[in-house]
């Protein structure tokens, strides 16, 4: 008796994540290249800017997120006055962060933690899908000065992880950007305090970014809370307004045969 030996099936292709991201150039091919050449300057994208020093990210800003000053003020670490004073005194030398620590306004650890949180937060939006070209200005530096540089690879990895986290919580991204509306369902006792605060700011007009600024919280944290609230059916996006019907179509000449037919029909009816 013979046994037929079939060769083992070829292994299924496994996407090598590390190789995959570098083959596609990661989140932003330009950013990876700038990291490789240890560039210093500012990367300008549609949703914000990343400051690089020696190929590492030292600061990030996005209009979608509250700035470091807002976060520090909201936590009661540093009031707006102390912040203004530091910017005035050390902004020109680009040493604002150092100035705050040296003058005992804030502990080095606390500044680092807040700054890292703000950096990753803004970078998430800067590295999001963009409809306009990316630009880089060599040599530009931020006035805050270096606090805790982050390698580009770590930032890209974290940005991808955050996208996946949001998708796992609730796959519809509508609540990320649109004005928000409460669904009308009663928020039961299952809503944690953090999410309740977010829910309290939802008024049919504010977007996630507005809610973040109002609460002085990192914007990504608000996205997380909103996706959880959306998953619970408590919050939704205000539906985009329907484009108003085009007025006066029938009075204008049209190449559309149906409209031409309707016009002839109208003329015929009026002639009766």
């Amino acid at each position, binding site marked *: 008796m013979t046994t037929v030996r079939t060769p083992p099936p070829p292994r299924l292709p496994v996407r090598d994540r590390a190789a995959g991201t570098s083959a596609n150039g990661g989140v932003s091919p330009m950013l990876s290249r700038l990291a490789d050449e240890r560039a210093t300057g500012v990367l300008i994208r549609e949703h914000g800017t990343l400051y690089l020093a020696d190929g590492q990210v030292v600061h990030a800003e996005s209009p979608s997120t509250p700035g470091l000053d807002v976060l520090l003020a909201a*936590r009661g670490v540093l009031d707006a006055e102390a912040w203004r004073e530091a910017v005035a005194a050390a902004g020109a030398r680009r040493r604002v962060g150092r100035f705050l620590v040296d003058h005992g306004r804030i502990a080095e*650890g*606390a500044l680092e*933690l807040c700054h890292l949180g703000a950096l990753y937060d803004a970078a998430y939006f800067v590295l999001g899908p963009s409809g306009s070209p990316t630009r880089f200005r060599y040599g530009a530096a931020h006035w805050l000065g270096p606090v805790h540089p982050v390698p580009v690879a770590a930032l890209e990895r974290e940005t991808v992880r955050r996208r996946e986290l949001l998708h796992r919580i609730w796959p519809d991204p509508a609540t990320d950007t649109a004005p928000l509306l409460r669904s009308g369902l009663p928020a039961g006792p299952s809503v*944690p305090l953090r999410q309740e605060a977010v829910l309290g700011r939802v008024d049919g007009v504010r977007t996630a970014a507005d809610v973040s600024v109002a609460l002085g919280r990192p914007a990504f944290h608000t996205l*997380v*809370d909103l996706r959880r609230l959306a998953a619970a059916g408590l919050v939704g996006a205000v539906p985009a307004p329907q484009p108003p019907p085009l007025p006066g179509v029938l009075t204008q000449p049209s190449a559309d045969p149906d409209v031409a037919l309707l016009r002839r029909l109208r003329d015929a009816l009026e002639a009766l």
Partner: protein
Amino acid sequence: MANTETTLKEAMASIEGATGAALVDYTSGMALGTIGGSKGFDLNVAAAGNTDVVRAKIRTMEHLGLKGEIEDILITLSDQYHLIRLLKGRGGNGLFLYLVLDGKRANLAMARHQLRRIEADLEV
């Protein structure tokens, strides 16, 4: 006064039996800093996963209407301790320190004491 890196280094050096530590943001699940760990123990994965532990506990306490705050959470494995300390300070709001201890070498009471001190260093 200390920065995050020296804080984590100090945690590893001063706490007997510590094999890894991470400073984690529990809304995003991101590790702001890690030290130690190994090929078989990815601290970034542990950080992200343990945010669910913290979140669940906070939610349960809110359901129960408990007013007290969580100081730390201890998870005991057959050969390890995992100690989670929630940071209360002004800068550390929403963060926790995650510490992995070797069960044979660690002294839990000492480890908790040291963590309290390290937290204070980071904040003031």
